[in-house]
């Protein structure tokens, strides 16, 4: 259980809750019994489909019932449809059911699974529409782990359908720009920094414009990052990303003079930031100190 306040009920309140719960429990247990009994008998029809909707509304984490629902859809709904258009229409309706659930429970694995499974069953599905939903959910919670995973999954599906390499690069570029936008809104968005790290590796490998040369890219990226750590020197996300930009992954291919100039510039700037932190607050900034010692370590490693 996460983020639910502890409550100490009075004797009266406990009694009232008990009475309310008694009713809910008997309803829930009856429904559960009936669903599991029908499941055991492999009854696949519209009634059992409705029954699973009612139970999943009460408990969206009941994985066995999601499994049963998929078996009903496969063995009853799909087998009675005449073409993929009809399947598409059914799946859209089913996605509404899932969408409603996600609104209330955006972190339940089982609901996301069902959504993925549905999309994979539908040849006519419009993935653009799905991206709109993902954008909206990330506006509500820009760190939701599930939504980010789902975003990469859907982008992957979109790219699987692309025939030209340039289209895939363009799509990665759009995703990269999306991370820039989110980071500009909030530099603490580590999920965005992470996705950026994934995308830029793809773009660097594909020698896309602006990414052909590791050195010039690195200089540009470091200045973007610098804006962020000057904005909030206590933000951990930025410093972890900096550690990566200054790691052997980037530095190992650079000529000695360029490597040195990058490290020297960073060392100077972070020291300067630390000085101004001391002036403002009377004490050094922990992340600055840590990063200074990291940069120094990298300097020694490469001499």
């Amino acid at each position, binding site marked *: *259980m996460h983020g*639910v306040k*502890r409550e*100490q009920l009075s004797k009266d309140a406990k009694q009232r809750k008990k009475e309310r719960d008694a009713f809910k*429990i008997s309803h829930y247990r009856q429904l559960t019994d009936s669903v599991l009994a029908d*499941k055991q008998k492999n009854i696949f029809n519209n009634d059992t489909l409705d029954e699973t909707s009612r139970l999943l509304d009460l408990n969206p984490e009941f994985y066995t019932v999601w499994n049963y629902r998929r078996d009903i859809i496969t063995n009853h709904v799909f087998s009675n449809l005449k073409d993929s258009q009809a399947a598409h229409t059914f799946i859209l309706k089913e996605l509404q059911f899932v969408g409603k659930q996600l609104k209330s429970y955006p972190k339940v694995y089982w609901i996301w*699974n069902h959504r993925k499974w549905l999309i994979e069953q539908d040849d006519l599905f419009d993935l653009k529409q799905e991206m709109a939903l993902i954008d909206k959910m990330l506006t509500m919670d820009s760190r939701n782990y599930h939504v980010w995973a789902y975003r990469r999954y859907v982008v992957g599906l979109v790219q699987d359908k692309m025939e030209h390499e340039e289209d895939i690069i363009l799509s990665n570029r759009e995703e990269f720009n999306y991370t820039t936008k989110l980071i500009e809104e909030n530099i603490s968005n580590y999920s965005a920094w992470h996705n950026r790290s*994934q995308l830029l590796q793809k773009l660097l490998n594909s020698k896309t414009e602006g990414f052909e040369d590791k050195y010039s890219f690195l200089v540009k990226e470091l200045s973007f990052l610098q804006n962020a750590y000057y904005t909030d020197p206590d933000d951990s996300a930025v410093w972890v990303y900096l550690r990566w930009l200054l790691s052997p992954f980037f530095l190992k291919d650079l000529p000695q003079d360029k490597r040195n100039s990058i490290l020297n510039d960073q060392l100077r700037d972070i020291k300067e930031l630390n000085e101004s932190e001391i002036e403002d607050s009377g004490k050094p900034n922990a992340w600055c*100190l840590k990063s200074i010692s990291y940069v120094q370590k990298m300097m020694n490693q490469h001499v």
Partner: protein
Amino acid sequence: MFHLSQNVCICSTIIMSLHKELHRKYIQELDSHKDDYAYWLTEHLRMNGLYWGITALFTLKYEDTFNKEEVIDFVLSCWDDLHGGFGAFPRHDSHILSTLSAVQILKTYGQLDILPATKRDKLVTFVKGLQLKDGSFEGDRFGEVDTRFVYTGLSCLSILGELTPEVVDPAVEFIAQCSNFDGAYGMVPGAESHAAQVFVCVAALAIANRLDLVNKDMLIPWLSERQVKGGGLNGRPEKLPDVCYSWWVLSSLSILQSLYCIDQEALRQFIYTCQDAVNGGISDRPDNQTDVYHTLFGIAGLSLMGFDDLEPIDPVYCMPKRIVLTIEKYGRE
């Protein structure tokens, strides 16, 4: 190593003890809340919950609290003969998570042999059958892939003494693909790092005897940076602390022999403040509702740090160390 929490003072009321007896009572009474609607809504987690409760009790050195026969009977009643694994509750479908919990419970009570050979074979076939071509594991027949299930699969087969290179090698390869720019691990290749996923990946590599693949220079600082003001640990940068990360982060650090990287005394105090001093149990954060999951991971974290005279817990299997000693180690002479 540098501590970000070192100059932060902890809240003024310092609770200096672990309420062992209260936690025992809390766990013992978990099954008596049948007039509470929430009890029924969590049936799909019952097997996992039982494992969490039993492991907490063993760590507290109260291993006789539950009636062993009743526990074993319950576990066996969750056998799903159609798919060949354990569900979380009678009549629920097999899932790799509930299957591992069942195997862990049987192993903890020294009762693995109670499974007849036919069931045991079916179980091994079920778990191995969930492994996909790329080395990953799905949770059940519906294709959800997650490094959690790779760990679950390896741990389960390891406890049963059924690991082979055919299973281990591709699994290791898959995990290697889930490592990120920060040295930590995510749910699938490309997914963001998360401390719980770090635990499953590092522990799976430990079972496979392949810790050489871990980027320790990046991962250890990342793990130590999970400690925030107040001593608690978070699961991802810029997130709030939560008791369960006392397990996910600490166990990973412990496997990498780097527990010294965090301020253990501060973390201990954070765990103490998340106890319910009236009813027992531990919550994710101070003054939140307790549950058996956070109760175990708080206690297990304290055990890893060697506090409170607890039974030593194994960081890879999350079971008492003395029981893990009887599991055959894979890939070692």
